[in-house]
């Protein structure tokens, strides 16, 4: 009988520090993973945390981890060559095929860029597989910007709008909430455009509303939810909303379904 709680060891191949609190850990991993799926990452004696995959590559996965709690505090003290314990991948993740040959808009708030980054990576590397790809990525301040190198590289093949909520005087980039930029994104076929919105609950609520106002069809909007999860496998009950377990049926939902998920 398989013990679904038994973690496996994974070696830290690289650590990239984006900000004081956000690091990306490149972890050794071979196996099927989809963007938007997550792992239960643990350090024995400290605890487990659900962390979504921010990049999938040959023999590795990236986990972007913000230092916000007991477990993540300890994880940040680790070095390349160290070991983290993983279980997963869990959840449904994004299905890249759903978005192929279509116009795509991704709106990501803060660390919400991590779970959706695999989708952006894919279409930035294969620009011919989408009709048009727009990314709006928002952060609190210029100091909170994650994946700076990626954002620069993506801009070569897709349209990238980078914005910050607020900045000191003299900052030359975009300033304003993501919602400010939604109406300005040119769309050729409003009936078919696919929109992915990921970020803090309040950001998702208003950004989705803005896209609906723009005329995007509800069934073409996709969101990813973040909830407390202790097991990741439909047992612990923390992530349940109505009859939906975010860990099993989510975290990625079509908006038509998500609109009925009332905590």
């Amino acid at each position: 009988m398989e013990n679904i709680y038994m973690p496996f060891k994974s070696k830290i191949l690289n650590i990239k520090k984006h900000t004081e609190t956000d690091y990306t850990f490149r972890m050794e991993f071979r196996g099927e993973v989809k963007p938007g799926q997550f792992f239960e990452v643990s350090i024995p004696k400290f605890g487990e945390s659900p962390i979504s995959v921010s990049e999938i590559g040959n023999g590795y996965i990236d986990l972007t981890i913000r230092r916000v709690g007991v477990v993540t505090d300890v994880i940040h003290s680790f070095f390349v060559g160290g070991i983290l314990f993983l279980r997963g991948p869990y959840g449904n993740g994004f299905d890249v095929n759903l978005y192929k040959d279509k116009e795509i808009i991704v709106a990501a708030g803060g660390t919400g860029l991590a779970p959706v980054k695999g989708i952006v990576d894919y279409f930035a590397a294969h620009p011919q597989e989408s009709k048009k790809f727009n990314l709006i990525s928002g952060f609190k301040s210029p100091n909170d910007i994650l994946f700076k190198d990626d954002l620069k590289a993506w801009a070569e093949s897709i349209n990238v709008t980078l914005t910050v909520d607020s900045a000191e005087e003299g900052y030359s980039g975009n300033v304003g909430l993501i919602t400010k930029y939604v109406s300005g994104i040119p769309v050729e076929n409003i009936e078919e455009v696919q929109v992915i919105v990921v970020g803090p609950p309040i950001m998702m609520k208003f950004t989705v509303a803005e896209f609906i106002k723009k005329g995007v069809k509800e069934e073409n909007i996709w969101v990813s939810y973040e909830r407390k999860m202790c097991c990741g496998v439909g047992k612990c009950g923390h992530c349940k909303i109505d009859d939906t377990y975010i860990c099993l049926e989510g975290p990625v939902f079509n908006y038509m379904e998500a609109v009925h998920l009332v905590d």
Partner: protein
Amino acid sequence: MGFKLKIEKFDEYLENLRREYKVYAPVKLQGKGTFADTDTIRYEEIKSIKEVEFNLKSDFSPKEIVLPITQTLFYFTQDECIEPKQEEKKILIFLRSCDVHAMKRLDEIYLRNGNEDYYYKVLKDKVKFVLMGCSESFENCFCVSMGSNSTEDYEMYTRIQDNEIYIDCKSEELMNYFKLGKTEEIEVVPEFVLTNEIKVNIPENLDQRVFKSKMWDEYSSRCIACGRCNFVCGTCACFTMQDVFYKDNKNAGERRRVWASCHVDGFSDMAGGHGFREDKKDRMRFKVMHKVYDFKKRAGYHMCIGCGRCDDICPEYISFSNCVNKLNRAMDEVE
């Protein structure tokens, strides 16, 4: 087969049985109740049938036998994860019909909702049920409304009457322990209650619109978020992971899971502090809807078994059955 025995005789068999089984039953714990000079009835391992409390409802359900309050999942030494040794003995549980039904709900979550839970399955596979009948309904019970007042799912039935124990044993394996010799076969029929004073009526048109009803408001101030209703419930199955290291040796520790309550602060809090259902009325709504609405959408039957233990234990006299009945008017209100 049905037969009867002197209680002393039954205890001799129980002693044989206990070589291979751990036997659990509701036991009255003198003076261990919430208030001074009150008792509590909880599940304990027993040595004699005389210890079993047949006449009263147990305050806690038998779920803690298959889902311990605190359960070690791994022992850690440096970077090795070691599973705890499994208990070798089989398990016999004395329980009432409603609690047999509650076990089925736990199976639903731990064996059928996603992959099988290893720790639960190991324990549950060892379990056999000994049914205790109910000659009359206890206070706050509404099992008839929930359809959990009777069951066929047991290996043995026992009833005590005039210093004798009446037994209906359906299991050949358990029969072997009795080594009866010449015993008169009699008809022993389980006692099930057919009516309760309390009845609940779950509205057929119940859905999420009821979230908007004003009926939930009173729970904001009445509920004190102690979580007792969850802990005594035979079907509440939520847990939280907990890692610890030992004070004497920080290199060694363990990962445990402990019972969690959707009424208690922090249930939905994520790292960074964001949580959902901060207001206690929303927690009440979340629990009630799980018990009589959304669990059914997944499993095909209601989660609540109508044991009424949540009503028995609530220090604020919040009645779950009353709340369920209020859903009818609430649906009229929002429709």
